């Protein structure tokens, strides 16, 4: 079977547009704390979530918006939740890292790695109550060093849980290059736990759709859990207003106030060797630039990639985008109503 690319693009585009509203609201101060965006991982979400059925469950990390939207949760409810309104998805009590929908069996958490156990529990319930359904656990590559997530990989294999582990690998955890703190290859690590594994370009929604579809079919049929390793970027970095990206984007303005203290530290009497100090300074100077450069490559933006494939039918594309524009405009207005 082939995916309906128009359908997938619709979901991706809708998520992108919705998050742009979130960003505007956040910039206006209507949303607090470090808002984590799904910008850049829309293809992973769409390729997977669009194949979920009634009774399937999702355990989400700190970037829950795209999967929730695609799963069919009312966008106004999400937006109002992010605004902390009593008429939000969770009465304004949860906020952007704690989005829940009982009817859709979706739960989130801001504790890195906790979607592993959460996914395992959903999958366990599926085994008893809803045979043929499954659970998805979303997390980043940084989370893969968190003990409870590793434990849950083993548990899923031991209990043959209908669970799909989805590692959205943007290569960074906050300001840390994940490779610098991670041993081995992730797919091999997962295989070492006895998981089925598949690696995929997370900017290619069709590829995600295919490999996720196969894994989901296998797990629905009782074939056991799979680890899906999807590479992606995050166009806004770790969260909105992230200092690494601010520095990386506007080195002159953002770096200047930091320079004085940095240089003072670099020249203090005791401490590391001058080679070490130069290495640190270079690292501090290059990480922001690299992070921005890596995360904003056009050809890694799934929206751009997918749009290119549809652009030959420009009329249909523009009509679709216009339609969604209207919807999201409307969502924004409704969210602001008293």
């Amino acid at each position, binding site marked *: 079977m082939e995916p309906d690319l128009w359908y997938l693009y619709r979901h991706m585009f809708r998520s992108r547009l919705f998050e742009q509203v979130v960003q505007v609201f956040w910039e206006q101060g209507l949303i607090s704390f470090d808002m984590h965006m799904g910008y850049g991982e829309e293809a992973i979400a769409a390729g997977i979530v669009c194949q979920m059925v009634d009774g399937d469950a999702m355990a989400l990390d700190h970037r829950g918006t795209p999967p929730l939207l695609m799963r069919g949760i009312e966008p106004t409810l999400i937006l109002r939740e992010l605004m902390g309104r009593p008429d939000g998805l969770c009465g304004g009590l949860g906020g952007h890292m704690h989005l829940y929908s009982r009817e859709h069996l979706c739960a989130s958490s801001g*504790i890195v790695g906790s979607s*592993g156990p959460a996914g*395992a529990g959903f999958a*366990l319930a599926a085994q008893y*109550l809803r045979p043929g359904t499954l659970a998805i656990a979303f997390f980043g590559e940084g989370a893969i060093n968190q*003990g409870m997530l590793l434990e849950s990989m083993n548990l899923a294999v*031991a209990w043959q849980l209908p669970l799909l582990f989805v590692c959205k690998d943007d290569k960074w955890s906050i300001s840390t290059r994940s490779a610098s703190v991670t041993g081995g290859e992730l797919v091999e690590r997962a295989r070492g736990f006895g998981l089925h594994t598949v690696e995929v370009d997370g900017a290619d929604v069709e590829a995600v759709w295919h490999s996720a579809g196969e894994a989901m079919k296998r797990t629905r049929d009782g074939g056991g859990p799979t680890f899906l390793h999807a590479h992606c970027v995050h166009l806004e970095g770790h969260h909105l207003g992230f200092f690494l990206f601010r520095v990386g984007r506007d080195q002159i303005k953002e770096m200047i106030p930091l320079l004085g203290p940095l240089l003072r530290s670099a020249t203090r009497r005791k401490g590391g060797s001058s080679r070490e100090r130069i290495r640190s300074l270079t690292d501090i100077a290059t990480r922001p630039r690299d992070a921005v450069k890596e995360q904003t490559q056009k050809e890694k933006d799934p929206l751009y990639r997918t749009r290119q494939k549809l652009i030959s039918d420009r009329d249909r594309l523009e009509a679709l985008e216009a339609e969604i524009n209207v919807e999201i405009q409307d969502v924004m207005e409704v969210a602001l109503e008293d």
Partner: protein
Amino acid sequence: MRTMSFDETIEDVLAQTMADDPRIILFGEDVQLFQANLYTQFGGRRIRDTPISEGAFLGAAITAAMAGMRPVVEVSLVDFLGVAMDALLNQASKLETFSGGKWKAPFVLRTTCGGGLGGGGQHQQSLWGWLSHIPGLTVVVPSTPADAGGLLFSALQHDGPVIYMTHKLFTDFWVENLGYLGRKTVDFDLPLAGMRGTVPEKWEPIPFGQAAIKRSGVDLTIISVGVGVHRTLEAAVMLEEEGIDTCVIDLRTVSPMDTAAICEAVSSTGRLLVVDEDYQGFGLSGELAAIILEAGINANYGRVCTEKTIPYSRELEAQTLPNKERIVEGAIELMDRS
């Protein structure tokens, strides 16, 4: 009325409720053999052994409960919760608030606590006060077979997370398997009245937050929980010989607490001694002090608790845990003070 051991009570309630409610499953390390009777009746699908991955399987219990199951998850000793604390601190306890009151996780965490078997400081902690600090958790500590049954019955019907703690000394199983181990050469100060007793023909739920007045008295109120209740009752007999008439209250549930019963008893005697096997500082004994002060009750107050890490040596252990002698001493000191 029937007579049952503490262990039999728990098994009886579990067998009955599991027979009636297919959503109840039980899992934890070694439960198939530790609960061989239930395993025989219900089979390996409902009684599951787990890997030594408390973080993953306790976390899984939460979402399994959210998705419609009623897991009973066993962590053999409460001390081991250190490796799984996130599930309690950040997930189970917060779900109801985070979801705006729309979602709850009805699961029971069964665990054992307490000392007196010469097991040292890492296998004999009590921690009920520590766990009760976290809003959103129910913490149950029965001290008789009848209470054990009724409270477990309630726990299995409760709509949120319940931590159900069994003191090791009440259970033939743990006294045998961590204490005697087939030997006749060791001796333990067992709370016999808590190990075996009459229970109702038909289990009725005992509501949470309802203390039991184990003994009335006009001179002094002693509040305790778990094995401490029995130590206190023995001490009360000794105190009687000294002409001190002691009222003894068993909290039965540490969270919620029966504030009304506490205040009534303390205001009538004007003296409160707390006997708490959990650590003294920042725990149950302090909370009881706050409750009576908040209520404007003017009372003499003292406490007999575990003040520090429990030593391995049997002799030092006996001095460290609240024992009859320390209770009597504390009570007399309190009487002398006014």
